[in-house]
Structures are given as structure tokens and as C-alpha cells.
């Protein structure tokens, strides 16, 4: 994929209202997000010939979305998937455009993630969980039914091996909550967090407190991808894709043999090589943040701090705007909103475009950004974008 560097661009991003109870359907939310992205790009719905989405059986279909935008697409695709699906569908779109099958693709994620199907669970049939989850009969009978518990098992081992502390997890939360205070659309806008409060908050599932969990929200996000050539005709400032690693896998998380390996370890060298940049060239980041610890492990994988020094890196305030690697600058999934990672992609596009220029939300001189998508220790994808 070396040859696609800088030849494709994200030309539109948009979102619906974000709430804990939308009172509407994922189709309405998706239409709102899609129209916002079209408006951002200065495109008409008929300019879109491919529609793609991902969901956990909690959304509307691409066919429905296109229908109610009044267009007949050449291509629709709906996949099951969570984190890293945004990067994967962008890679699919690039491939389809590259091969001449499509011109411009709209990718969306729409969900009533709080009022509808909640990832945090509750109400699941336990026998269904045992068969639906890889290795399920070896974890469900022991009470391990929540992603927080599975990620926690990776986290405590990694913390033990590298010396990460509870305060280091807290620094990730504090940085992202601070960013949410500058973002009026963030779910936890108006709810600042101090280290004292973080440390005093009881555990839900050690090593995680409520602030370490991503939130659940009702919302939709949309992204429009096209060729660099067509991007020139769009209203927005194109953000070019320098490097892209769609989705790499390691053994499933529930094959607990090797907690030291995560898929991001394999994604990182590929995405940097394709983009032709190094970690120190990255000005701004969106790091997949389903849990605070996941950010720390990815900082290690993507080379922002050596193993064993990631804790100091975050304690020094480097994830904050003004730090070495301003990350999740809209608040991330911990405090802005949750669409399995797509909201983090929207933010990196806006930062690299300098859309917040003149405000305290803009990262100064940010030309290159990284966006990582991580469903868990089992699979990961990432992309590097430039102004």
C-alpha cells in the first residue's frame, strides 16, 4: 500500500447530537451525522457512491441510510465490529476507489449506546455469552463477563511488569477530562476531575474506577473519504492519509497465554513505515481509549515512550494540550463520547485542519496526527494523517 501515501483524503466529518437518551432511532442519528459530513465537505448525497458502516447489531443499515438520503449507491457494506473498524473501512474505501469501483465513500457509526444496546452489558443471556465469546465457557462461569474485567487482567500484569501505578492511569483520565472541559459538546463537559477525586473514587473492577471506563452515549459520526484529486473540489480542507494499517491480529484475547503481546505492536512499524515518519514527528494523537490503561499500553506500542517510562511520560502532562503528545483533545471516549472510536477520528481531522484556530482547543503547529483504533489485545489498526 506504499503507493497510496497522500493520494487519499478525508474531506468531510460530521456528527449527530450526543446524549444519554436520544429519543430517536440510529437511522435518524445516522442521517444527521451524514448530512453534517456532506455539508462539511460541500458535497451532495448523490456524490456518494459507497456507504459503509460497522455495528454490534445496534444500528441501521447502509442501504437504509442511502435510501433516506434519496440516493442509489453502487456499493453498501455493513460489518460487525467495534474498535479499529473505522480504520479498516477507510482502508476498504481506499482500495475500492483505487481499483476504480467507487469515487467517494461515506463511513458511519450510529448507535443508541446508552439508551439502547449497552456495551457495559446487563441483561445478557449467560449461555449465549459462553458461545458468542471466544473461550467463553472458560471465563463466564468465573464471573468474567465484562470487557473491563478482561482488559483488567492485561492491565494488572502489564502494570506489574513495567511499574505503572494507579496514579499513572489517573493521569490519562485527568488529561482527557481536562480536554472535555474545553469541548461544550463533550458528555462530561462541566465535570472536571482532580487526582484527589480520582484516587478517592472506589473501584468498580480493580484496577479500574469509573473514570477509567469509556462512557456510553447515543450518537452517530460520519466520515467521507475520496481521492486527493477529487478532494481538491471539496469545500473543506482535505486531510491526507499518509499511512494506514487496516487491522492486524494476534491470538484472541481469551487465549490468555501471552499477555505481553498486543496487535498494536505489529501495526506500529507498518503504519510509520508507510507514512515515512517517526513517533517524534507526530504532533497530535487520538489513542483508542476504551479504558485508560489501553492508552498507556499503546503509548508503549507506538513508541511515544519506552516500556517502563510510559508512566513518567503521562505524569509529566504530555497527553495534555501543550504537552509533547496532546491526545484525545476533545475528551476521547473516556469523556467526550463513544462510537467505538470514530469520534476520535473526527477530532484528529479537525485538529490537523486547524479548525479550532484561535481557541484554547487548538494544538499549536499540528501538521501530522495519528489515530489508533484498538478493539483490544486481539486486533488493532491505525492511520497517520497530515494537513
Amino acid at each position, binding site marked *: 500500500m506504499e503507493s497510496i501515501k497522500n493520494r487519499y483524503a478525508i474531506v468531510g466529518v460530521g456528527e449527530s447530537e450526543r446524549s444519554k437518551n436520544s429519543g430517536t432511532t440510529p437511522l435518524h442519528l445516522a442521517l444527521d451525522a451524514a448530512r453534517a459530513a456532506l455539508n462539511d465537505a460541500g458535497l451532495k448525497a448523490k456524490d456518494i457512491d459507497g456507504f459503509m458502516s460497522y455495528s454490534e447489531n445496534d444500528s441501521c443499515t447502509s442501504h437504509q441510510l442511502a435510501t433516506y438520503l434519496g440516493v442509489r449507491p453502487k456499493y453498501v457494506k455493513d460489518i460487525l465490529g467495534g474498535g479499529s473498524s473505522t480504520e479498516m473501512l477507510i482502508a476498504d474505501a481506499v482500495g475500492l476507489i483505487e481499483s476504480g469501483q467507487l469515487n467517494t465513500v461515506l463511513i458511519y457509526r450510529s448507535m443508541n449506546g446508552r439508551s439502547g444496546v449497552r456495551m457495559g*452489558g446487563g441483561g*445478557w443471556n*449467560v*449461555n449465549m*455469552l*459462553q*458461545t458468542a465469546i471466544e*473461550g*467463553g*465457557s*472458560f*471465563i*463466564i*462461569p*468465573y*464471573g*468474567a*463477563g*465484562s470487557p*473491563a*474485567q478482561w482488559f*483488567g*487482567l*492485561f*492491565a*494488572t*500484569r502489564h502494570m*506489574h511488569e513495567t511499574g505503572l501505578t494507579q496514579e499513572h492511569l489517573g493521569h490519562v483520565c485527568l488529561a482527557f477530562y481536562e480536554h472535555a472541559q474545553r469541548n461544550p459538546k463533550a458528555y462530561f463537559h462541566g465535570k472536571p476531575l482532580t487526582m484527589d477525586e480520582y484516587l478517592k473514587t*472506589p*473501584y*468498580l*473492577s*480493580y*484496577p479500574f474506577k469509573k473514570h477509567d471506563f469509556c462512557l456510553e452515549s447515543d450518537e452517530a459520526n460520519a466520515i467521507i473519504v475520496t481521492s486527493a484529486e477529487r478532494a481538491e473540489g471539496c469545500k473543506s480542507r482535505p486531510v491526507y492519509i499518509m499511512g494506514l494499517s487496516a487491522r492486524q491480529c494476534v*491470538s*484472541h484475547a*481469551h*487465549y*490468555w*497465554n501471552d*499477555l505481553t503481546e498486543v496487535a498494536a505492536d505489529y501495526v506500529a512499524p507498518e503504519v510509520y513505515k508507510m507514512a515515512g515518519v517517526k513517533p517524534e514527528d507526530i504532533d497530535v494523537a487520538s489513542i483508542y481509549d476504551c479504558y485508560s490503561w489501553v492508552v498507556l499500553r499503546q503509548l508503549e506500542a507506538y513508541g511515544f515512550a519506552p516500556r517502563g517510562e510510559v508512566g513518567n511520560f503521562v505524569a509529566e502532562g504530555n497527553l495534555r494540550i501543550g504537552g509533547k503528545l496532546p491526545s484525545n483533545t476533545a475528551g476521547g471516549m473516556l469523556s467526550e463520547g463513544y462510537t467505538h472510536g470514530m469520534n476520535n477520528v473526527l477530532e484528529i481531522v479537525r485538529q490537523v485542519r486547524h479548525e479550532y484556530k484561535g481557541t484554547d482547543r487548538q494544538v499549536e503547529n499540528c501538521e501530522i496526527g495519528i489515530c489508533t483504533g484498538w478493539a483490544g489485545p486481539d486486533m488493532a489498526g491505525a492511520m497517520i494523517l497530515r494537513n
Partner: protein
Amino acid sequence: MEYQKPIPLKTQDNSPYWDGADRHELILQKCNCCHQYSHPPGPSCAKCGSSELSWESQGSDINGKVYSYIVSYRPFLPGFQDDLPLVIAIVELDMLPQVKLIGNILHCSPEEIEMGMPVKMVWKDIMDDRSIPQWIQV
């Protein structure tokens, strides 16, 4: 009283393991090709893809060490509400360190649990004809 927690579902891929547990015996899947253990067991070896698999008894006297753990303060699944805080651990087997089993460390407080802690397998009878392996501190 009826057992409230999820009961391991036997499938074509895992039934030798759970049938063994019912007899208070640890049965592990091993690959005849690369000679590695496959746990959890599966339809073929997750290390090399071979479908030449066999089952090997490790007996009933199993010891291990805590490789990782979490402490759950909420019952994320039904039946665990009276067991909180619940310690869920990954245990590395002393005789086969490459094999790691998930289980609960019973009668263990959050203050006691630590990495590397030695534990011993105990068999908990959950129904007349079903048992699951669990762990206690040595």
C-alpha cells in the same frame, strides 16, 4: 439451593475438559504436531493449525501461581452478587507454565491477592454431576 451462576457449557471442542472437571481431573488438549498445549481447547491447534490433537490428564493435584488478577466489586454476571469483592485470576500451572487457567481465588481478600502468589486447585461441586476447578491460597 439451586446454583445461580453460569454453568460451563459443554461443546464438541471442550467436553473432554469439562467431563474431566466433573471427575475432579484436569484434562488438557495437546497438539500432536507442534507438541504445544492448547488452552482453551479448540477444533485445531491455535499455535500451528494442526487438527491432530490429543487429550492428556494432569491428574487432580494441581498447583500454580497467580500470573494476573483483577478484583470485581460489581456482579457483572448473575449469581455473583454474594461473592463480592470477587477475585478473578489467571493462574500459571507449576508443571506446565505455558498453560494458564482463569478461575477465582476463593476466600481471598483484595489485600491478600498478589502476583506470583502460590495457589492450589480445588474442585467445587456445583450440581450433582458437575464440578469446576477453582483455586485457594497455599
